[in-house]
């Protein structure tokens, strides 16, 4: 399908420039590709390989390790229900089953209209707010069965668009390092001692 757009190539270059070794930009670039297409396409992964100078198989190798990277299309909204211990104790499994009924699909699958993918996930760090879920990685705390139904209806009707961007978009704010403020990357083969440490040592020597 799609390689990265010209706009995203510019963003990618900015990201790569922040790392001492281009390969370190792999995961951020995979997120960028997923933001563009909703999931990871072969073309995008090949494009990333070109941008950071590795083999396409290495990009796939990394991508396939991580839960959040989707190698197949998923719904516009990925609904992740936590069923780990703290949520299990507060009805997380029941919430998941309720959503399975509401959406008419089992956990791990996507509704026929391509709107929702339902997932049974591990702890998402909202344990004191159990049971909890995320939609496209936006949190919903202490979710009752009723609240979950309302949430799905709202999402379907587009009433949550300001709160929940479409799948693939994580941070809607990008880090920008202004050129005049940039300290620069610390290359692994640059053995120079930082000036403020060297200053400290020479002070010691003087006082000694």
């Amino acid at each position, binding site marked *: 399908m799609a390689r990265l757009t010209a706009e995203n190539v510019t963003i990618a270059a900015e990201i790569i420039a922040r790392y*001492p*070794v281009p*390969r*370190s*930009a*792999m*995961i*951020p670039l*995979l997120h960028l590709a997923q933001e563009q297409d909703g999931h990871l396409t072969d073309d995008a992964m090949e494009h990333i390989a070109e941008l*950071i100078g590795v083999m396409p198989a290495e990009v796939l*190798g*990394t991508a396939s*390790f*991580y*839960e*959040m*990277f989707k190698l197949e299309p998923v719904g516009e909204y990925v609904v992740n229900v936590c069923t*780990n*211990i*703290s949520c*299990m*104790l507060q009805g997380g499994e029941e919430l998941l089953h309720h959503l399975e009924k509401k959406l008419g699909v089992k956990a791990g699958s996507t509704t026929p209209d391509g709107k929702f993918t339902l997932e049974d996930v*591990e*702890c*998402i*760090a*909202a*344990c*004191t*707010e*159990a049971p909890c879920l995320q939609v*496209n*990685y*936006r949190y919903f705390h202490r979710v009752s069965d009723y609240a979950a139904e309302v949430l799905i209806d709202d999402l379907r009707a587009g009433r949550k668009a300001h709160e929940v961007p479409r799948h693939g978009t*994580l*941070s*809607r*704010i990008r880090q*920008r*390092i*202004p050129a005049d*403020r*940039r*300290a*620069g*990357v*610390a*290359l*692994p083969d*640059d*053995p*120079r*001692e*930082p*000036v*403020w*440490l060297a*200053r*400290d040592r020479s002070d*010691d020597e003087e006082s000694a």
Partner: protein
Amino acid sequence: MSDAHDDRRGQIPAIVSSRWGLDQSWTLDAYRRSGGYESLRAALAMTPAQVTEEVKTASLLGRGGAGFPAGVKWGFCPPGVFPRYVVVNGDESEPGTYKDRILMERDPHLLIEGVLITCYAIGATQAFLYVRGEMALAQERIAHALNDAYGAGLVGRGILGSDFSVDVVLHWGAGAYIVGEETALIESLEGNRGMPRLKPPYFPAAKGLYMQPTVVNNVETLANLPWIISNGGAKFAELGAERSLGTRLFAVSGHVENPGVYEVEFGTTTFRELLYDDDYGGGIRLGHELKAFIPGGASAPWFYPEHLDLPLEAGVVGAAGSMLGSGAIVVMDETTDVVKAAWRIVRFFARESCGKCTPCREGTSWLEKILRRILDGHGRPEDVDKLLDICDNISPAIAWPPRQTTICPLGPSAVSPIASAVLRFRDEFAAYCGGTAEVTVPITGKAYLSTPDTVGARR
């Protein structure tokens, strides 16, 4: 509780949670209005060695799980070897743990200030802030905070007009619990599958990111540094007890009246206070009784009512056969099906095993399947002993601290819930499996062998 005790509690400062209630607490304005970045200024007036000395005086234990003293960790960087990196571990994923996310969402500048102080002290010329992938809001807040901090001359070249320069780069993960292990996190930051490296030789302080000296610290750990620099390490060390000094965040979840994240004095506060006091957990939910609680995240051996009077002190909890881990306390009342609870935790480890080491990859999935079979009503009388035999293969003698047959502690962690549930609640397993749930595998971990009569709970 005595009045004297209450008075003391009233005097405990909020070291890392003081801004959580402020309006727009995550903004640079709110941060600076409440004294933010003054500690950085103070640190820059000190020598890097003096900064490190303050942190050593504070005896700040790492708040991520392993509980290693931060100042000592910094000292492991081999002298004269550069460049050095600082990597922030914001990959909070241990079941029950919820405190780094709040810190990152509500007080990102506090973390950034802590990172800058660390870079200055150890002579790091670049820092990476690795935030868990699923935490979109934390990523937004940190990106926003970094952009503002760069704009204000607080990060980047010539910080606050000094010769201290460092870029802080926001990086984020993509969903893998194992990446919370520091060498796996470094692998992930290098663009690889997040699989742990063997220690030795790959101790990050010596051979970390790009094989260079790297300090990996947890979010909450770093958030303590501004206070330590402003108030002095000695002042910090006046709080707490024994090895556990300062304050610490604990997430109390499960069957309590008031689940929440509480900053309490480390080392002196007891589990009973944290679970039952109205200021904190507020007691077991109405009309129910405590059955068991997990004191330090899903990897920790369980505690029972006889452990309630233990203080939240790393050494004491360790000696009792468990750990404070990542500050996650999960409370289970008498309605809890412990077989199911153990299964759910083991399923987590089975799903999150990276697959590098055979005992973990195979062992965790066998454990999960057998427990699932038991829950589905197809358990066999010998299954309980079989579960423990597999545990013994992953972590010999089912000891505490756990012995490892694997590169990292994930595999041995799966042993904790099983040994905890089986030994204390054997009748529940027998009810599922038939027979008497006989156990022949030798077990040495102290918490697993605890009984309701154990008085060792008292200090």
